[in-house]
């Protein structure tokens, strides 16, 4: 088992992901952590609400991990995404990739987050003091 996919309703732990991808065969680990920013284009955000089509989201995250494992010599990869209500500073996603040499870890991790943002059925609603908006829905 070199792939760990989790869709969590509670908080994420980068340390847990790092521990899971660590191994004596590993030389480099790259970790991406996506956090909730306090504002979007100058408009202060109260909180975010992440909704997922859960079985498909898990399946799409697994596909990303599998494709990454085909393209790069990956020792282990963990992709954890949170759903539900998130406050400013909360972690929305953690991706950790371990490889024998570091370049592949960076490339695979960046591939994973870039692809996740395009294909994984998770939707983010930003809630402001004066309204709310589904991110990226409209041009």
């Amino acid at each position, binding site marked *: 088992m070199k792939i760990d996919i989790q869709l969590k309703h509670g908080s994420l732990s980068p340390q847990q992901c790092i521990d899971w991808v660590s191994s004596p065969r590993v030389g480099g680990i790259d970790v991406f952590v996506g956090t909730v920013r306090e504002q979007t284009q100058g408009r202060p955000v109260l909180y975010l609400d992440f*909704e997922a*089509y859960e079985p498909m*989201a898990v399946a799409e995250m697994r596909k990303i991990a599998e494709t990454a494992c085909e393209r790069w010599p990956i020792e282990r990869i963990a992709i954890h995404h949170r759903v539900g209500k998130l406050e400013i500073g909360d972690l929305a996603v953690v991706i950790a990739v371990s490889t024998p040499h570091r370049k592949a870890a960076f490339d695979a991790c960046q591939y994973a987050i870039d692809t996740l*943002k395009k294909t*994984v*059925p998770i939707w983010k609603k930003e809630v402001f003091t004066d309204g709310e908006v*589904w991110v990226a*829905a409209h041009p």
Partner: protein
Amino acid sequence: MQLTILAFGIAKDILGRRELQLEVPDDTTVRDLKDRLLERYPEFSRLVSLAIAVNSEYSAEDVLLQERDEIALIPPVSGG
């Protein structure tokens, strides 16, 4: 046949519900379903994109739908 369609994100807001029951002809394709939804809910045409997932996979437009399929409307995703 009767299809059950799941809606997420802004698609759920446009339909006004999480699940839609829709009576369609037996030879309905993904494209036919999309046309029907766009006609009935013109707001969908204002979205950046609208994909259809069949049984938890993104589907091509020419796929024929079955009554037992799990169909989902996928507006532009924004996870991460």
